[in-house]
């Protein structure tokens, strides 16, 4: 990798100022948490910044806090392992999404904010040999090329799938993502944090250059049920072919405020609204879950080599709904 200047701020404000100063002076700069993804991109010469601003050694936004009303705030620097072990009872969908990501070694280092801000794993985007739409090229090469791991929804402009499993769970949980920037921070609904290629082809989220994620907030919901499930080729250490998170409130024996979000299927975590409408106000059982799985395919636009994903999307939505209701979902033997 090309060498860079390491900037070691003493506070988050200093980090944000350093990034702003670099931008102003025409230098390229990248913020770094654990660096597990950044180092990969630096080694591939996918990036060659003048400066790397370190966040990892900062002493705040690195723990899980619970407020008096039962809400949970997860600092940007909390590792995927710490989310998985610390929030299993509170937020099983998020804990399972983080626990199943990557490898133990990566989960012990990688941060939740870094996971949300990952760039796509699309091989055309990652390879320096290809000039895809996201890198200023004229077309999405996956759409007519090797697209077996690409999007089956929302793929008209660019066919990446968003790489964050935690993001799928956070959109389902209707989490809020708080940021910091020199002009003042913002708070996004998780669903608004992720942006489709039609909105910004060069980014997968709404962060402005130099803006930093500092906290992820999840409010307490009375009677909330949640689950996350995925389907992958290998039992461990594999990207999902299809994954889903489901969140709802149990009221009088039926599901209310149902949110069903599909991952590894679109450039953003994808709300399955037809499936949500089908489940809303009903008691979840095997027949309803199967119908919802089929309904989740509404609007799908599979590409030349990825129509095989559609039955997987239907199956993973069905399984996740069953798991959220505490019913057998057929994945127990693998756990």
């Amino acid at each position, binding site marked *: 990798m090309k060498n*860079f200047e390491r900037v070691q701020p003493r506070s988050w404000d200093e980090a944000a100022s350093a990034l702003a100063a670099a931008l102003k002076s025409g230098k390229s700069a990248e913020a770094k948490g654990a660096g597990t993804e950044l180092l*990969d991109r630096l080694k591939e010469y996918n990036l060659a910044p003048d400066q790397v601003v370190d966040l990892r050694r900062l002493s705040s936004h690195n723990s899980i806090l619970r407020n008096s009303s039962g809400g949970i705030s997860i600092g940007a620097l909390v590792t995927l392992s710490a989310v998985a072990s610390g929030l299993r009872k509170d937020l099983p969908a998020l804990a399972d999404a983080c626990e199943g990501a990557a490898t*133990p*070694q990566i989960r012990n*280092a990688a941060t939740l904010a870094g996971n949300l801000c990952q760039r796509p794993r699309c091989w055309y985007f990652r390879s320096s040999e290809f000039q895809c739409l996201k890198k200023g090229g004229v077309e999405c090469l996956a759409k007519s090329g090797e697209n077996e791991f690409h999007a089956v929804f929302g793929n008209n402009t660019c066919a990446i799938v968003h790489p964050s499993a935690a993001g799928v769970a956070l959109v389902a949980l209707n989490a809020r993502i708080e940021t910091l920037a020199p002009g003042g921070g913002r708070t996004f609904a998780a669903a608004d944090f992720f942006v489709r290629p039609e909105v910004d082809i060069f980014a997968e989220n709404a962060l402005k250059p130099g803006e930093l994620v500092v906290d992820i907030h999840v409010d307490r919901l009375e009677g909330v049920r949640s689950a996350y499930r995925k389907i992958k080729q290998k039992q461990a250490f594999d990207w999902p072919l299809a994954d889903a998170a489901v969140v709802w409130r149990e009221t009088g024996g039926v599901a209310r405020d149902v949110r069903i979000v599909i991952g590894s299927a679109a450039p953003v975590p994808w709300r399955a609204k037809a499936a949500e409408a089908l489940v809303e106000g009903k008691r979840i059982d095997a027949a309803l879950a199967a119908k919802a799985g089929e309904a989740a395919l509404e609007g799908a636009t599979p590409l030349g080599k990825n129509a095989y994903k559609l039955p997987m999307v239907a199956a993973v939505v069905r399984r996740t709904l069953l798991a959220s209701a505490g019913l057998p979902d057929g994945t127990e033997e693998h756990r």
Partner: protein
Amino acid sequence: MADDKSHPPDRTSGVTRRGLIKGIATAVTAASAGATALLVETRHELEAANPSGPMPVSIAVNGVARTGSFEPRTTLAEALRDSWGLTGTKVGCDRGACGACTVLLDGLAVNSCLMLVHDADGRKVTTVEGLGSPEAMAPIQKAFVEADALQCGFCTPGMVVSCAGLLAKNPSPSAYDVKEAVAGNLCRCGTYTGVFAACEAAAQGKPEVTRG
């Protein structure tokens, strides 16, 4: 230094491959010693003019304080192997995919190839050399030998460190826990059954290993 016990000298010739390479490098360096002295004199000026120049780092590696000055792009794996001679840590894919570079950072298994050395400043790192030596092996190392849990051996240090990290947290892991703990360690020879048997044997403190 007695830190490179994973590579005992070749007793038939008294020369190691690594030692020979180091010797040649030293001879070449000596020839340009004059130039080196000049460089050292102006180093402080260079550092001021070059903010991406070497920066100091101090890490407790296997209980020994290690210090050095490294360019910001240096990974922990490179510092361990190239500067401190701890070549038990292997670099396979150099992208966090194979796990050969696994070390414990404050007790947790991490990929040293995906960590900048300055990120480990002030922290505790344990490499495979820190677990035990050929003369005084740790239980997990002994169990790997007894289970014949290796073929080519390149993945072995990473496997051993991942298992050690698991056993430190969870002294009686289930078979599932063991598989999960080494899920980030690839073995192209496919010696996983031996690895699982070794880890389970070390957990139970069994002298005999049953191959699964």
